[in-house]
């Protein structure tokens, strides 16, 4: 099994969730994060104090999927989250060894 972890623009969340649902993925976990990268931040001024804000609000999405689904999930996210503008974010995939559904104790594939 894999976790597909993506950093996306916040307003793309609903589209990404729909894209995942449409390929049968019904669970995901979202975290508010701040991202630093090529997309440049902005400047805020409070009276005489000027702050360069380099970290921009992003959302991190984590989806655990069966290994066979990983590529489809990546593609779904990549398509839905794309605006073509700098700062669209990245997708990372890594392996997980074990999954448990707490409520039932089911493991691995059954737990997804």
């Amino acid at each position, binding site marked *: 099994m894999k976790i597909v972890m993506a950093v996306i623009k916040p307003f793309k969340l609903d589209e990404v969730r729909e894209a995942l649902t449409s390929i049968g993925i019904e669970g995901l976990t979202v975290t508010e994060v701040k991202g630093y990268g090529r997309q440049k931040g902005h400047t*805020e*001024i*409070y*009276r*005489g*104090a000027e*702050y360069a*804000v380099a970290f921009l609000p992003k959302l991190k999405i984590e989806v655990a999927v069966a290994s066979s689904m990983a590529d489809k999930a990546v593609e779904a996210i990549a398509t839905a989250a794309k605006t073509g503008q700098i700062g669209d974010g990245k997708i990372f995939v890594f392996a997980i060894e074990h999954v448990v559904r707490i409520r039932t104790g089911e493991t691995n594939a059954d737990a997804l």
Partner: protein
Amino acid sequence: MTNRFFKTSIAGGLASLLMAAAAVAQETAAEAPAAAAEAAATTMDKGDTAFMMISSVLVLFMILPGLALFYGGLVRAKNMLSVLMQCMMITAVVIVIWVVYGYSFAFGGSTSPWWGGTAKLFLGGVTMASEAATFTPGVVIPEYVFIVFQMTFACITPALIVGAFVERIKFSAVIAFVILWVTFAYFPIAHMVWDANGYLFGLGALDFAGGTVVHINAGIAALVAAIMIGKREGLGRDIMAPHSMTFTMVGASILWVGWFGFNAGSNLEANGGAALAMINTFTATAGAIIAWAAIEAVLRGKASMLGAASGLVAGLVAVTPAAGTIGPVGAIVLGAIASATCYLFVSKVKNSFGYDDSLDVFGIHGVGGIVGAIGTGIFSAASLGGIKGDDYSIAGQTMIQIQAVLVTIVWCAIVSVVALLIVKAVFGLRVSKEAESTGLDLTSHGEAAYHS
């Protein structure tokens, strides 16, 4: 250690002080009738009394929660409660001091040009029937009303200074400093400016609602304190953006609302004079808000909310000494000029010095107060819409205004330096670096402002 000891002794001292006080007050009350004797020829109007009581309430509202929110919103969340606490505790402490000796020191009736003497310690001799004069001969208000109104001024002035040293000051140091400062700076200067025997009053300085006593005074103390206490750790490196501009805006709005009590109330009667002070407090502020925003729009391409709020306060500060003697159109101009000057100072000039007057107390109250004091000399002239006609000399009055400003600056600066040195020696001024990094809320007060 020291800190602990200080607190214990304060608490103990306070208790005995208070116990003694009720008795003293009672004794002096016996000697009181003299004060009320002159009542024969006076008239008291319930409209004035009502107006002055509400005005007093409005000034308290300016501090709590007005000023507390204005300042609190500008600091980081980890220091929010410390600011609120400082404002609240200063208010409480100065109220008690005012009753015990502050009122007497400022308005105790002595003929000294420098202080009011000790005749009214513990409000001795004041009863429900005591009267205080207004600016109209023969028209009086209950003395308790005058005491309360002036008390709120004594409370807000030291609270204004807080903005200079937020996020790093020791709580015990704030309180100790304020006690010394009101005693040796505020009460004497209030006497000098507002008492008929006062030195600056005698010079003929115009200060309708406290431009020198309140704003320049607080501004100078703030400047001295910012320099002596030093910069916040991480200034210029860390992001120290306001944790809630919303609270700052609410605070600024409440300051405006309450300031009508401050300025119109300073007329002591509910009449056309109060109305003039009121309209000026509207128009000067409006002019100042527009000026700051317009300058930012031109220079930065964006008018900021904090800019508008800062202009608002700058306008209020500037119109404070002038409210009773200038005209509403002149007030717009005065407000705009003060706002532009403050803008220039806090966003350009200040950065070239090295001090950390964190919330620009000097930049707004000091600078705005000075512009207002001088502007009062100018815009009070009938030729510029003011009420001073005929034998009024703009140049002459302006010189007097400048003199009053200078006296205030010097007196206040000296008291502030000495007071801070004493406090530093006894308690220390700053919390530890670690406490500063963790935030004062947890380390000084054992609380956090926000949870989920």
